[in-house]
């Protein structure tokens, strides 16, 4: 029984960065801007968060700074996509290179050539509430807020209209660009928080291989969850659960299942679900235009 509790709490822990980042993807793409640069924004957020947490000694400041770091990168993507009509996929890829490049570059500058930040003291980590890191609750709160925004508020409706039919939205007097800026910038902020919740919560430092593809998993979770905050959160929980399962099964004595096969399982399952049950994707219709 106790081990099951551990399994679920590890699931929540591993899902948190994915949930934040995936929500970021939802908010940007709902407004009509493709954000394939989540990975880079996450990486930059992870680095800045751990740097800030170490220099100020306050994990919450670090967490916030991580979000702001993601937001700064998102500014570039937003201006390129919305103002200059960029090819959004290309610009997003640029964010990925910039994000990882800047993070390790600055890390080497600030920490005397090391590509890792020094580990954070345990007392400086985000506090636990009922055996869960506070960020876990924040991730669920963020999901709820986004769901509420899209479902019940004028802001949400206008974001959706900017992504589904920008011309009609314009004709109705909606400032489409403004809402898209909002979408992309909050996307960067959320992805930054996602990175931060990895670097200063789950592990205690930043290193170059920390993110390695998690941003893309979050992107996949967003598509898997059909561009819906709750759906994306569930997809992230699924990916988090399988990560936790590898850790959990690895700890059982006499277990002979190869951890490699076990690790591959979520990706196979996702493919099967996509092929068998999901049907055509339901992206916002004006995505990328």
């Amino acid at each position, binding site marked *: 029984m106790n081990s099951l509790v551990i399994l679920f709490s590890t699931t929540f822990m591993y899902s948190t960065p994915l949930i934040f980042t995936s929500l970021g993807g939802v908010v940007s793409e709902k407004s009509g801007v493709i954000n394939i640069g989540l990975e880079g924004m996450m990486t930059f957020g992870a680095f800045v968060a751990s740097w800030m947490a170490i220099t100020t000694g306050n994990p919450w400041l670090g967490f916030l700074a991580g979000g702001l770091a993601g937001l700064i990168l998102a500014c570039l993507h937003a201006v390129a996509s919305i103002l200059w009509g960029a090819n959004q*996929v290309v*610009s997003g890829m*640029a964010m990925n290179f*910039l994000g990882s*490049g800047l993070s390790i570059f600055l890390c080497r500058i600030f920490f005397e050539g090391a590509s890792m930040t020094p580990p954070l003291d345990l007392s400086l980590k985000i506090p636990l509430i009922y055996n869960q890191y506070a960020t876990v609750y924040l991730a669920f709160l963020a999901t709820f807020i986004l769901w509420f925004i899209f479902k019940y508020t004028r802001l949400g409706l206008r974001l959706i209209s900017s992504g589904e039919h920008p011309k009609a939205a314009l004709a109705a007097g909606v400032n489409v660009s403004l809402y898209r800026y909002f979408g992309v910038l909050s996307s960067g902020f959320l992805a930054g928080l996602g990175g931060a919740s990895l670097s200063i919560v789950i592990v205690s430092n930043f290193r170059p291989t920390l993110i390695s*593809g998690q941003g893309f998993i979050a992107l996949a979770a967003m598509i898997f969850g059909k561009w819906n905050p709750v759906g994306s959160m569930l997809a992230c929980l699924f990916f988090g659960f399988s990560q936790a399962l590898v850790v959990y099964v690895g700890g059982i004595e006499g277990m002979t299942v190869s951890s490699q096969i076990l690790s591959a399982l979520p990706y*196979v399952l996702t493919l099967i679900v996509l092929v068998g049950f999901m049907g055509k994707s339901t992206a916002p219709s004006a995505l990328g235009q």
Partner: protein
Amino acid sequence: MKKIIISLFSILLGFLIGGIVLKLSGISPLEAYKVMFYGSFSQPNYISYIIIRSTPLIFTGLSVAFAFKTGLFNIGAEGQFITGALAATFLGYYFNFNPWLQIPLVIIVGTFAASLYGGLAGFFKARFGVHEVLSTIMLNWLALYISNYFVFYEGIRRPDTETTEFINQSSSLTLFEDWKISEVGIEWLNQHEILKSFMRPPVNAGIFLALIAVIVVWVILEKTSFGFKLKATGFSLLASKYAGINTNAKMTQSMMISGALAGMAGVTHVMGVSKNVAVLAAHEGYGFDGIAVALIGSTHPFGVLLSSFFLGTLKYGGQKIQSALEAPSEVISIMIGVIIFFIAIPSVLELPIEKIKTFFSNRRLQKQVNTHE
């Protein structure tokens, strides 16, 4: 032509902003670029290392560019690379024919394995409407874990290591491998300093295959009706369907070719350089770099060729500033990011380019007026 100018202009801006970043960190940009330049071209063996580094980039760049032409975004070059590398390792280890049979066998079967793997994403898209970005991300991770599983597989695992056994000598693409260490070879090379230096790295035939691939891809895309149909599918799916093109089949075929190209990168890497595969903790970034190469080369086969040498040089020369100046070599990633960023926004670059053009044509006019007077 315009695309070439935009790429060159973006590269210039990449160096400029990279320089500013270096300057802000208290490192002299001129010094750093000088180290990079000498670290890339001052010795013959540097050139061979650049060629070795650029070879997989040509393949993965072509792979991504080819899929782009059909309107598909192949993030899966990484997974297809792994598939090709793993298949080549297996074939090269378990079979040991005469090189004239062995080498084509390993290349063809290894490439075909990767081709099927890539085709899977195309098939999922065509048949089930699964977004190719999503499926290729999943397939990348799947390939990584499958590869890791087989690296630990008894029989091919090299005892007490996290790598596989080496492939048989008969599958090697490395040039003059035995001769280089034979007495005659050593003696001959000692008399020819430049070639000796050039031959020191594992120079291999992969580059020739890559050059052939560039030409084949160009011919397919520009000179065949098959290529025309592929491009039409990418340009407008509905119009192509209306014109009677089987767009579903075209998507799968395009991804199969794209997968084969990325797979060739893995195959030639194993046969020419690494000779085995190791456990992967994370993706190595071949697919990622392929995307960069394709974008900087504006998805044209010849552009890809140039941009892979550019990127290969940058990556090889860039690492030299770490030891020489203690400057972070990650400035290279920043530069690549900046270059791609500007390539994404051609409309912004067009304005200054137009300005420069009019400036020069004005001057020419002015001259003509002057001579008339």
